[in-house]
């Protein structure tokens, strides 16, 4: 083979762009190097990925991509592999390319063993085409930024067409409990591995109002659920044509949530059972850990290694992250779409009500501690310019649980109205649109012994992060 001049030139150009971008202080340089490298050699990602001895893993879905990919990365590292991973969350095709370029030497060769790419929903077809992945993990599919992605069904169709191109040597790992995702596996040429939650104690009453895929993919009849875990995720069956949740290969047999402290998981597959004491809270994180375990098992990582890695896991910035700020326990959780926001609120209300959680003086009518919240809603491109989704999210759970809530961001006023109609008394809602002023206000109000919950949209989270970095309270994210 002749020397790949073009790939080397593309790598070099991308690296130069990265240096320049960092020197100019324009952030972590998470996209620009990819744009530059692809301009020089459009095929650069394909060529670099082809050189990875253990291939590429893609992680996609509406919610949980970043956290799950980080869990997989921890497990693979614990298994002794060098992992090329877009940790900073640059998940468009240019971001994947930038990650690959940054990980390559000056001859355009990757030094890693395996590629792990969190992938934006809209970029899945391109990522599959260019990286020819060994494993594709699909977590879930909910409505998200309809102004950008279009409808849920459109995305599912595009994913399906892309997955159909995978050879028999690839494995697709799918969430059996999400009907829109499980249906993707029907009759594929590649291997299909399903994971699912068996512990029906985590069911909630009825399908929530905003469910996207509650109608049978085959015949259009409404699914019957027994039970629903959240959104349209649960144990479903079509009463008309019989299409039902596939029996999962990797199963979360027993899940015990223990408040803000984390959760205990008992996971089984054909080989047996293993326990994981997960140090991050909530049903969502437990399901992310299950998905990560399924991918690891598909790659033949031994369960003790999976367990060891997950038990020392720390969350990505803003993804249900605990930050001590000036002596206060602050829990930050990104909200960006209805189902994710509903689950985050459920987790917050649940952890606050857990007897092991923090105690505080103020309590609601039923004796539960009242919550202090900061909700920051922006409507920039990366957040989605349409804030209609706030009305599909189940903020009603907060109703009488809020002690004080500050709303901020470019759509602070919309959020204030949303909370009022969710049953939060207006006198407990304070609007501070300018983010710069918010942290001072929050710290002035917040009693030291109570936890504070921060719920930002994506760009709001970055702004908050910058402000915290400026104050020396957290490190810059691209060093993360």
């Amino acid at each position, binding site marked *: 083979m002749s020397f790949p001049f073009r790939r080397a030139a593309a790598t070099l150009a991308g690296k130069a762009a990265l240096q320049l971008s960092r020197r100019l202080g324009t952030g972590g340089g998470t996209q620009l190097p990819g744009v530059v490298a692809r301009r020089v050699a459009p095929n650069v990602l394909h060529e670099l990925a082809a050189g990875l001895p253990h291939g590429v893993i893609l992680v996609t879905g509406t919610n949980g991509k970043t956290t799950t990919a980080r869990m997989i990365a921890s497990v693979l590292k614990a298994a002794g592999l060098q992992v090329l991973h877009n940790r900073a969350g640059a998940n468009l095709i240019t971001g994947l390319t930038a990650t690959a370029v940054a990980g390559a030497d000056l001859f355009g060769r990757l030094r890693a063993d395996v590629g792990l790419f969190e992938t934006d929903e809209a970029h899945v077809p391109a990522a599959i085409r260019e990286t020819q992945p060994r494993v594709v993990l699909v977590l879930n599919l909910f*409505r998200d930024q*309809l*102004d950008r992605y279009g*409808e*849920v*069904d459109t995305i599912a169709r595009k994913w399906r067409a892309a997955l159909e191109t995978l050879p028999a040597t690839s494995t697709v790992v799918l969430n059996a409990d999400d009907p829109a995702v499980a249906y993707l596996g029907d009759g594929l040429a590649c291997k299909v591995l399903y994971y699912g939650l068996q512990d029906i104690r985590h069911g909630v009453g009825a399908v929530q*109002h*905003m*469910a*996207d895929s*509650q*109608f049978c993919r085959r015949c*259009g009849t*409404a699914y019957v659920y027994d039970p629903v875990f959240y959104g349209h995720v649960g144990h479903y069956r079509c009463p008309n044509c019989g299409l039902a949740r596939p029996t999962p290969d990797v199963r979360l047999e027993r899940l015990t949530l223990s408040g803000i402290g984390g959760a205990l998981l008992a996971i089984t597959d054909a080989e047996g059972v293993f326990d994981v004491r997960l140090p991050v809270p909530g049903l969502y994180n437990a399901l992310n850990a299950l998905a990560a375990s399924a991918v690891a098992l598909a790659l033949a990582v031994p369960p003790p290694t999976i367990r060891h890695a997950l038990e020392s896991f720390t969350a990505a910035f803003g993804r249900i992250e605990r930050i001590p700020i000036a002596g206060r326990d602050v829990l930050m959780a990104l909200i960006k779409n209805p189902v994710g926001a509903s689950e985050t609120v459920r987790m917050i209300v649940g952890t606050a009500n857990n007897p092991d959680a923090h105690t505080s003086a103020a309590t609601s009518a039923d004796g539960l501690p009242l919550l202090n919240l900061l909700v920051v809603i922006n409507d920039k491109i990366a957040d989605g*310019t*349409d*804030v*209609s*989704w*706030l*009305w*599909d999210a189940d903020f009603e759970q907060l109703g009488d649980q809020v002690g004080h809530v500050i709303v901020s961001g470019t759509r602070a*006023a*919309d959020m*204030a*109205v*949303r909370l*009022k*109609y969710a049953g939060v008394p*207006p006198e407990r*809602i304070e*609007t501070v649109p300018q983010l710069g002023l918010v942290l001072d206000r929050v710290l002035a109000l917040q009693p030291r012994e109570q936890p504070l919950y921060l719920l930002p949209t994506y760009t709001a989270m970055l702004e908050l992060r910058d402000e915290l970095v400026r104050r020396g309270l957290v490190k810059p994210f691209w060093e993360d």
Partner: protein
Amino acid sequence: MYQLAIAHLYPEQMNIYGDRGNILTLRQRCQWRGIAVRVDGIKPGQVVDWASYDLVFFGGGQDSGQALIADDFVQRHGASLKAAIDDGLVLLAICGGYQLLGHYFLTHTGDKLPGIGALDVHTVGGEKRLIGNILIEWTGQKRGAVRRTLVGFENHSGRTYLGTGVQPLGLVQRGFGNNGEDRTEGAVYRNAHGCYMHGSLLPKNPHFADHLLSLALERRHGAVAGLVPLDDGLEVQAHDVMVERLG
């Protein structure tokens, strides 16, 4: 005690872009005033006596959701709902619901999907989606409301054209409106209102929400003393922030 019955058409299939916020708003604004309010979700296959409802809401849906209900709506409810609207039934329809109240939707492949023809409008499928924040001057109101603007968010590929049998809901100040050409947005016929405004529409346009509630109360209880004013500080702020940004 005043009371209102609200019908919410196909909430499981037609529930996109936060249109549920409109139902939450109508319900809360009744409850805060001590008006007994009942909201019934209407499912496919259900027989409806329109005379038993004071207000009807019909939101937008994903294409798949709309496909599941379009036949049921047109065949089961077409004639009876059209007659009820002719008779003055108060109604708000948004996006897909608005289009189904018109004569037809002409797809870009040339298929003519029937509506119920209760509003004298028709819709033509377009290539490019019309997406973004929208601000209109509300010209359809009957009373001297303080605020004459409505704010929302539109996201539609259909271009709707008005016939002579309807008035526009308003004139576009910022955004696209019915078709991006003639500056009109929405349509009003008697007490039936259709438009493309998500956002949700009613929470940050409380004057329009109360307009619909007034129409419905008057129709049921005859001349009423007027709605008890509410403290709309937060709602008005949400409205004014967007008027200032877009105006």
